[in-house]
């Protein structure tokens, strides 16, 4: 079980690094899908079965396919993309590492947290999640539908006509 956690973590971090450094966008999408499948494995390990299924359906099934579709539609799979200068890349890596250090330092003290004493293995099942979603979180649920509606209107407006030059 612990071995599975470290295996999935290694796959996720490897996929994430390859997303950033791989040359062609198609390869980046494939590595991001691998990374997301590792995430789904983590969710299953955490007893969040419904979350794992939704994650695979939404991310791997919808969002990444949308990315692939746009890449193929716009024929973006060329490898002669201009790269940033080397010192900008170096600064990017250094600032990422510094952010990691700061976040690690701010998360110190988390080892004092202990798992809940009354462990409930059924919180990730669909029945329990549905009860919580439609009782405590009903208003945010309805508001998210408005968010989707406005996103849809925005996409239709953006894709309608070529708005004059930037």
């Amino acid at each position, binding site marked *: 079980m612990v071995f599975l956690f470290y295996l999935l973590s290694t796959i996720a971090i490897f996929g994430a690094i390859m997303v950033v450094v791989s040359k062609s966008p198609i390869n980046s999408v494939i590595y991001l899908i691998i990374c*997301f499948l590792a995430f789904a494995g983590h969710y299953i390990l955490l*007893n969040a079965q419904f979350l794992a299924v*939704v994650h695979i359906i939404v991310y791997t099934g919808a969002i990444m396919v949308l990315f692939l579709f746009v890449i193929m539609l716009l024929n973006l799979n060329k490898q002669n993309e201009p790269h940033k200068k080397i010192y900008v890349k170096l600064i990017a890596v250094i600032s990422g590492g510094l952010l990691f250090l700061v976040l*690690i330092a701010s998360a110190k003290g*988390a080892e004092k947290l202990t798992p809940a004493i009354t462990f409930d293995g059924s919180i990730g099942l669909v029945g329990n999640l549905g009860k919580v*979603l439609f009782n405590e979180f009903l208003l945010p649920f309805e508001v998210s539908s408005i968010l*989707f509606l406005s996103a849809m209107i925005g996409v239709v407006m*953006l894709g309608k006509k070529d708005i004059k030059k930037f």
Partner: protein
Amino acid sequence: MGKISSAIQLIPLEHYIWLSLALFSIGMAGVLFRRNTIIILMCIELMLNSVNLLLAAFSAYRSDSAGQVFVFFIMVVAAAEVAIGLSILVMMKKNVNSVDIDLLNKLKD
């Protein structure tokens, strides 16, 4: 089921925190690292997902399902963001015939 739920007791919480923070930092470094807009969008997805993983880990540790409901709302926001972002990308490709983020610097000055 009994075997799987023991994983939460076996793996310390800070390992999940470190994993999520590492993935978040990789995503942020990727946003600064690349010029291709589609890869920048992917890195933003990666950052949102690392936060999702951390929320799910806390929810499992405290046996509280509110964290998993929050993950759904983050997924909603991510889906809307991807739809808008990709349509902006299509419009950018149509207008300036490139997906280089450095060409869109008119707001800078």
